[in-house]
């Protein structure tokens, strides 16, 4: 035992005497996690958040959250002598007069963009595999809250440098707040300490950005991870994997090394990108003044969809009893995100209600085995993507030489028409894949080899599935849901069903969800099918032997090939071997 270990052991004992930590360690170090690349997407988000925190602390040492106007006297020549807020001047100083400051600023920004993108990708994984199902509904809601907070963190950070782009973003945010009926005007005045731009907003936002939001995110991440810990990670179907076990590697040492190493990899790649690729060159955009604007003013990607919604929404505004309601702003910028995040948060409950399924699910669905869910996910992504295109329509217009007016009209119609099409197509594809899986389970692999039997019949040789693939395909049985039966108005005992109408709705929803799914074969059918396939394969086996012995016949795709100089027919050849196959 080395000296370090001795010291470490003493420390562990010392701590354990006071908090009983060894009990936890003993249980935890052997904790098993399943291995799959898609389970690391959440880790990317976690690690990039840590990078955001670390780089953010560095930035706070130099950044001044003040809107006081100063004359710039730093080393960036094209802005020398220009009036600007202290916030912008200090951000320029970080970029040009603090060595490595630009690197850290870029790391902060890239890591922030990555944080939200990784959360989104992680969410896709969780959604499409049904990992949000019981018992993990709370963690899904926490995840949605984290994404929402991530947007808030991102937008508040984007606004702090007080450059022309971020100031324009704040102007838009102010316009949105003002469009909220009844409370909007006062809300905006309170937030901004009066009119736009005022002198207080940046410092207020600063507090929110460096304390409130990160604090909440940190708290929620802690709960999120504790829940993963308690509930144990879900796993994909495979050999030996059931709903009641976890198959994988222990935390110590495998995941200590893999996850720990992955942290450094994420950290390192973010640093590399920040050294190689510019992000948010605020010195180009110039200081913010409320009477200047740049073409191509866009928010960061995660707000882009809301900006897109704002761009394509028709110009509807009504005046009722002397009060103005700006539907053209209120709906796309307030109602739409409200609906999107609420529906997303409650989705697990909606699906559970339609299913009537109260079991725990620790084994993940393959996306094809939940066609409606998968299709809904693709529909949502399509909707998001179209709005995102709207958010960058001017850049798209000049890049592809299109008219912004045509793009907007395309999107106005497209956001209504295209997502349902995406839904239908995805569902069809999933159902098609389900059919194929069913075939495979019943009849094995199509080997592509055609065999002619002595009496002239051609058959295609099928092969039994390898055990791993069979275990994966058999998970369809676990995933399959039959639609709920239509409810009865009066039950067998003549008692009236008080919730009849609700039950009708539920049955309809359930029907819509599951009616088109392909019912997988039962385990008995699979067993019989695979046995049959094994028999088929046995039929072909002598051919292979013959094949190897004298290369008279070589099986190939679609038929039987005669080798050169061989006068006998297939039949003769076979007869020669004893007449039986």
């Amino acid at each position: 035992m080395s000296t370090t270990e001795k010291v470490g052991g003493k420390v562990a004992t010392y701590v354990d005497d006071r908090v009983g930590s060894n009990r936890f360690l003993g249980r935890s170090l052997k904790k098993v996690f399943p291995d799959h690349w898609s389970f690391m997407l959440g880790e990317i988000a976690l690690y990039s958040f840590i990078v955001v925190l670390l780089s953010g602390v560095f930035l706070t040492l130099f950044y001044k959250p003040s809107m006081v106007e100063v004359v710039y006297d730093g080393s960036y020549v094209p802005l020398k002598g220009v009036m600007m807020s202290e916030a912008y001047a200090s951000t320029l100083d970080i970029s040009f007069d603090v060595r490595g400051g630009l690197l850290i600023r870029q790391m902060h920004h890239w890591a922030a963009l990555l944080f939200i993108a990784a959360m989104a990708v992680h969410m896709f994984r969780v959604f499409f595999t049904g990992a949000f199902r019981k018992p993990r509904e709370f963690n899904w809601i926490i995840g949605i809250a984290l994404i929402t907070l991530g947007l808030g963190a991102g937008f508040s950070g984007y606004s702090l440098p007080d450059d022309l782009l971020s100031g324009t973003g704040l102007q838009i945010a102010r316009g949105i707040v003002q469009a909220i009926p009844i409370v909007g005007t006062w809300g905006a005045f309170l937030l901004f300490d009066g009119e736009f731009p005022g002198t207080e907003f940046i410092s207020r936002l600063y507090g929110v950005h460096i304390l409130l939001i990160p604090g909440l995110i940190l708290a929620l991440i802690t709960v999120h991870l504790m829940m993963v810990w308690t509930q144990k990670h879900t796993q994909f179907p495979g050999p030996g994997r059931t709903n009641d076990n976890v198959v994988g590697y222990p935390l110590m040492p495998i995941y200590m090394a893999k996850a720990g190493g992955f942290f450094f990899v994420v950290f390192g790649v973010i640093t590399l990108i920040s050294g190689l690729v510019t992000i948010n060159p605020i010195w180009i955009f110039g200081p913010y003044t409320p009477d200047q604007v740049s073409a191509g003013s866009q928010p960061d990607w995660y707000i882009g969809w809301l900006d897109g919604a704002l761009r394509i929404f028709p110009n509807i505004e009504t005046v009722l009893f002397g009060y103005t309601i700006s539907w053209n702003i209120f709906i796309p910028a307030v109602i739409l995100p409200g609906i999107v995040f609420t529906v997303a948060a409650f989705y697990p409950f909606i699906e559970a209600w339609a299913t009537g399924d109260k079991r725990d699910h620790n084994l993940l669905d393959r996306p094809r085995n939940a066609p409606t869910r998968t299709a809904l996910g693709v529909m949502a992504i399509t909707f998001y993507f179209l709005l995102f295109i709207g958010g960058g329509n001017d850049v798209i217009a000049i890049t592809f030489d299109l008219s912004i007016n045509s793009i907007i009209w395309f999107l106005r119609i497209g956001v209504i028409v295209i997502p349902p099409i995406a839904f239908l197509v995805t569902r069809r594809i999933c159902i098609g894949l389900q059919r194929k899986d069913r075939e495979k389970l019943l009849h094995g692999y199509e080997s592509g080899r055609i065999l002619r039997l002595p009496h002239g019949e051609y058959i295609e040789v099928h092969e039994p599935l390898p055990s791993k693939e069979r275990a994966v395909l058999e998970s369809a049985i676990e995933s399959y849901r039959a639609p709920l039966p239509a409810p009865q108005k009066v039950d067998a005992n003549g008692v009236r069903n008080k919730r009849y109408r609700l039950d009708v709705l539920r049955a309809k929803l359930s029907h819509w969800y599951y009616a088109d799914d392909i019912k997988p074969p039962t385990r008995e059918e699979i067993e019989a099918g695979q046995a049959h396939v094994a028999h088929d394969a046995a039929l072909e086996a002598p051919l292979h032997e013959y094949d190897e012995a004298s290369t008279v016949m070589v099986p190939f795709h679609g038929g039987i090939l005669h080798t050169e100089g061989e006068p006998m027919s297939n039949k003769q050849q076979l007869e020669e071997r004893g007449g039986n196959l």
Partner: protein
Amino acid sequence: MKALAARRRNPIVATLLLFVALLGVGGVYAVATSAAPAEAVATADQTAIDEGKRLYLEGCSSCHGLNAQGTATGPTLIGVGAASVHFQVSTGRMPMAAPGAQAPVKPVDYSEADVAAMAAYIASLAPGPAIPTAEQLDYTDADIAEGGVLFRINCAQCHQAAGGGGALTQGKHAPSLMSSSAQEIYEAMLTGPQNMPVFADTTLPVEDKQAIIAYIKDLQEAESPGGIALGRIGPVAEGLFLWAGVIAVFIGIAVWIGIKAR
């Protein structure tokens, strides 16, 4: 073509060529325009004007009319000035190959002398903005920072803060300024080509124009302190890079971690 384009963008060369053309057709008096007797100038210019008219009738009159009075397909050129002609023709925007939302930049069919002749012809129809002199185009002493402020007030709304260009209505666009010469920038401000408004010397004096040119030139030549610039168009390019590049790299790494070693 590239060499020609590079030479064309150089303001000094362009101006010199203009002078050479004037010398060639009108004689030495043309150089000292203000001092020269009016009659001599008139004679000197007349040859250029005639040549310009010939070129005009060949290449431009089908849209702009036989007397430059304008038709349904092209606006009147009376009073647009020599600067306008030089800008439109020497960047290849005119003559237009086909009607469209906006005249695109394309290879130039005319020599500098031809352009100068056409400019002289149009200028002879009615007074208009003249081609800027070398002195006007000299931005070496201009204040870049002041130019930046004026650029953001007057130009960035269409041409984007980094001069990368931006979209206008119905398929029109404000072009990128990243390869524009000082003369092109000056002439564009002076004449308001296509849908660009006019920034006359009265509202944007010569020294302000020089400052703006100095700032744009600085943008063209500036290094990118933070690494590859992604077109300097901001969040859209960054978001694209993030999803197509960074996320893809991380998924690749995650797959690598997940694969069993052999």
